[in-house]
């Protein structure tokens, strides 16, 4: 909103090079924000990104064509192929945010909010969830925090294959904008970058989504008409994360257009559950608060929906 520049964001799946993806934007005919993601030589990749930042599409080809590194291609060569494909309309712009779908249908889901680099708390919570009999664990951002254990937490989440959504601070980390926070490796940043912003799931016969909060709406090219944008606009913008109950009549008028039945978010760092019409809204609080550990349990059975906060 406010900036009317047409920003197109692209994600290119590479072939034959170390980086599995190249991300870039095209803004009014200029190439911007090039990022080689998931591997490769981070130093050289950043140099390429800096050198090409803001250059016209027509100009970049001469820098990229015909460079070989391995498998008769290279990261720059792949970038050249990607930009050419985007220019010729063969590579379509990506959605502004990533949606991951959990293909399994669950009846008991455990949610961890804002672990913020507290790997010890995370391990205790996940163990407790497993003892309690959840069928899956979803971790909401922020995974990272003002902690010297962010790397351990990321390692734990990856090792246990926990489905995680990115938080605002995780996004900042991924952009090399962590400020004074402890540094991560390039691979860890890339892992944070590739986290979905929205996780789609099934609880019993109902569809749910979970996301962190409003930072997603500031992504380049964010559209109010993308899948689940309406749910985000209503939660983040209209109701201020369900804190303003005076606008619930308006929310009730909008929910028939929702694609999801259950909307779970965590930006507020508060616990809460609201039902508006036939939709469930859940705010997940932080994993650790005032020395207490807590997680959220969503259950479904015989058509019923239940949410509770589990204290450890």
């Amino acid at each position, binding site marked *: *909103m406010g900036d009317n520049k047409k920003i197109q964001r692209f994600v290119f799946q590479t072939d034959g090079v170390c980086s599995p993806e190249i991300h870039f934007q095209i803004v009014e005919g200029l190439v911007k924000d090039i990022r080689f993601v998931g591997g490769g030589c981070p130093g050289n990749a950043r140099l390429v990104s800096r050198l090409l930042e803001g250059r016209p599409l027509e100009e970049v080809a001469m820098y990229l064509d015909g460079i070989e590194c391995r498998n008769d291609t290279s990261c720059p060569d792949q970038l050249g192929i990607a930009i050419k494909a985007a220019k010729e309309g063969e590579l379509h712009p990506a959605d502004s945010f990533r949606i991951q779908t959990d293909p399994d249908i669950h009846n008991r889901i455990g949610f961890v909010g804002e672990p913020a680099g507290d790997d010890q708390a995370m391990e205790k919570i996940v163990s407790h969830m497993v003892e309690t009999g959840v069928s899956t664990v979803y971790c909401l951002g922020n995974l990272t925090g003002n902690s010297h254990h962010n790397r351990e937490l990321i390692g734990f989440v990856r090792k246990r294959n926990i489905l995680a959504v990115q938080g605002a601070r995780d996004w900042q980390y991924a952009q090399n904008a962590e400020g004074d926070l402890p540094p991560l490796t390039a691979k860890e940043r890339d892992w944070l970058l590739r986290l979905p912003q929205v996780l789609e799931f099934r609880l019993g016969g109902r569809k749910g989504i979970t996301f962190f909060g409003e930072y997603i709406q500031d992504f380049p090219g964010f559209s*109010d008409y993308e899948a689940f944008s309406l749910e985000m*606009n209503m939660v983040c913008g209209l109701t201020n994360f369900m804190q303003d109950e*005076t*606008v619930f*009549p*308006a929310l009730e008028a*909008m929910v028939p257009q929702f694609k999801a039945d259950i909307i779970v978010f965590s930006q507020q760092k508060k616990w809460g559950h609201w039902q508006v019409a036939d939709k469930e809204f859940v705010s997940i609080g932080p994993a650790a608060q005032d020395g207490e550990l807590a997680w959220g349990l969503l259950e479904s059975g015989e058509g019923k929906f239940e949410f509770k906060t589990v204290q450890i």
Partner: protein
Amino acid sequence: MAESVKVLPDDIKELIDVHEWDMRTREGVQRFRELKAKSLPSVALDEELVYESLIPMQEELIEEIRRRYKNKNQGV
């Protein structure tokens, strides 16, 4: 709601500028909050929320528009 405005007589339409906001959008939500509206549909006249959760009868809407127009143009 916009339909009820679209079918207003031409002499009334000449007195007003009509803006419609899509509540699915961030811009629509922002406008809704600026007007301190609570429910849908809502109609504001001269930045003032006048109708909420109801579509006024055409005669009522015309009368309200005329009244406001008259008040604003008194002494002109």
